[in-house]
């Protein structure tokens, strides 16, 4: 048999990667979630999760924290991206760079710096939830700005001209042109901020002095003691994440959406 080289063969390394690092681990999580300590099939973890107010509260708290973080990020990032995309400034990439540079600095270092800063202001230990959200906004802001910026950059200038030709004011232009056309950027920004802010417990541990428990920390702690419950929590988080991605349209294959992802 003669082996023909086809371009499809180039996909094999990635397929192998997917199999070993995505599909098999998912199946392992699924297996652990629905077994008990003796490895028998069991729905005990599932029932226990939904009958324990502590676990449900943690999910609710994580959702609320993630929601506020995302909302704040969006409110800050949208005007920035809009101004940057629409301005005729020659050196606007410098400003963009300033927003993106923190991403190049080590994450733990950044969080430690913020911790020092908050301690200096006197908020550390006083306002744990505020600190956590503050840290997350700081950390995830670039992930919101970039997709917004790239989508807005792609909006055709002639649309704005047409809009003003037809007598639309600034507000109408915004609601009829900018906002609808930047929707894909908003959607991908939301997915990229919402998901990590439910699980990134380094921020909540460092800035909330471990007094704020989010779902990621919960999973971590369970994996120290009870893998089965840990897997169940991870599975439920996966479902929540899947739902929210689906709702924000992350799975649509439109040209615009794909362009907006980093």
């Amino acid at each position, binding site marked *: 048999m003669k082996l023909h080289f086809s371009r499809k063969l180039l996909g094999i390394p990635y397929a192998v990667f997917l199999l070993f690092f995505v599909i098999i681990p998912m199946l392992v999580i699924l297996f652990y979630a629905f077994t008990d300590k003796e490895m028998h099939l069991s729905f005990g973890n599932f029932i226990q999760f939904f009958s324990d107010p502590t676990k*449900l509260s943690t999910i609710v708290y994580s959702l609320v924290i993630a929601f506020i973080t995302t909302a704040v990020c969006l409110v800050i990032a949208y005007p920035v991206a809009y101004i940057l995309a629409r301005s005729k400034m020659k050196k606007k990439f410098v400003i963009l760079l300033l927003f993106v540079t923190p991403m190049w600095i080590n994450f733990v270092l950044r969080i430690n710096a913020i911790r020092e800063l908050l301690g200096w202001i006197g908020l550390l230990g006083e306002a744990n939830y505020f600190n956590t959200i503050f840290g997350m906004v700081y950390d995830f802001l670039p992930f919101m700005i970039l997709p917004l910026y790239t989508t807005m950059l792609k909006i055709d200038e002639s649309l704005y001209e047409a809009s003003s030709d037809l007598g639309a004011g600034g507000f109408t232009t915004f609601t009829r042109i900018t906002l609808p056309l930047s929707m894909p950027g908003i959607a991908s920004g939301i997915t990229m901020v919402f998901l990590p802010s439910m699980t990134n417990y380094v921020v909540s541990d460092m800035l909330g002095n471990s007094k704020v428990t989010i779902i990621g920390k919960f999973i971590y702690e369970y994996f120290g003691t009870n893998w089965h419950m840990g897997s169940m929590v991870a599975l439920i988080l996966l479902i929540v994440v899947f739902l929210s991605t689906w709702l924000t349209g992350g799975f649509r294959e439109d040209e615009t959406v794909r362009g907006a992802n980093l």
Partner: protein
Amino acid sequence: MRKKRIGALALASLAALPTLLFTAGCSGEAEIVLRVFNWEEYIDLGGEDSYEYDYEVNEDGSAPPIIEDFEEWYEETYGTPIRVEYSTFGTNEDMYNQLQLGDTYDLLCPSEYMIMKLAAEDYLQPYEESFFDPEIEENYYIRNVSPYIRNMFESNRINKKDADDTSTWSDYAAGYMWGVTGFIYNTSYVQLDDLTDLGWDIMRAPQYKNKVTTKDNVRDSYFVALAICYRDEIEALDRSDPEYGVKLAEIMNRTDDETIKKVEEIMLEMDENIYGYETDTGKADIVNGNIWLNFAWSGDAVYAMDLAEEEDGISLNFFIPEECANLWFDGWVMPKGANTQAAQAFVNFLSRPDNAVRNMYYIGYSGVIAGDPNDEEYGSMVLDYVKDCYAVDPEEAEDPVEYDLSYFFGDESAVFYAEREQAEYRQLHAHYPTEEVTKRCAVMDYYGEEANESINELWSRIKSETLDTWAIVVICVGIVLAVAAVLLIRFGGKIDFFRLPPKKGYRLVRQQNMK
């Protein structure tokens, strides 16, 4: 063409030659591999931070890691080359997970409760009898281990859950480091009287609200809450009673439902009052003044006090609460199937007093090795090291006190003069507490599978904010409604049910027909 190919083949085989030779050389001498699994930063790694002693140093003056020295020593002593595969873990639970995943090791260094758990689950291989024979020259551990530690290891059963199993800690474990728990406190803000009056209850004291931290792990926090809960009972015990230690240990290892209920209330109040839970930020936080009191293990306390001495304007002391403190130790155990000969040799090598001092100096904790009065070369090294650090000349020092460590060193010469400060509140007090202090300490056992689970659940209730049921229901309904709204906006137009009825004169066109 053909020639070229032969040339390439020859070249390739030439390139492979050294590899072949190398592997052949190794298999010929049968190199042993010793897999050691230890805590992070829990052994001398050489370099410039190493203890300066008269052993061989590298050309640049830095010391080789102790593991390399072991490899050399082993080959010299036993004539077989050995290679140590050294890996590290961050928590006892991480280590346990690695074991469960099927990783194999020859030597592990877990804490006391994890050793008990491993023993109860039949993971461990006992030490060989020859390990305890003081006549064998290489048996440094048994000759040099402190009589205090040895007695503790020999008098405690390792598997308390199984009444038939009479084996003790010493059958399965050789000690490595030990210490107690207490508070590091900032002397400018914390009144010593408050500490002596309140003890562990300072965690709930309103005057120290947001100024005290505890560890972000369930066992340490549970211990503190237990000590607060049963303080009266502990203080009612008679200290001179020979059974005092046993009675204290019973109290400090209670895990019955009623205790858990009481402890939960105390822990919730602690949670309200404390600054936060930490695993390694505490030392920095107390040095830069964010907090005044930090629950600490003795080795960390020594480190923090050393650090504070280098900074200006901050003075830290260590306090071990009067009622009770936790006595902990980490020890070397061998999992089933380990290479016992090499593993025991490793333990013995680390127990040779000069190496014990090196490790202690490097990691800052107190080792279990005391020394052997009959050994002229190494015998007094540990005691000399301690005296070097803390002993003062009573004629010259301002306020010297006699410090008696004979219980630990098993040697009358282990009594020396130290500054009162050092002896009562500072490094010496944390490094080597007196016998009086160790007597009021209790070891925390492995709770057992069932109790462990309920205590972990308790911990998750403390750490998470629990909402009322109605709030959860309201929020869940809200989320469902929001999801429904988004769905309606996105897909509503495509479903006939949601579309408005057509105006007069028009007819409804089904979705499929429109395309």
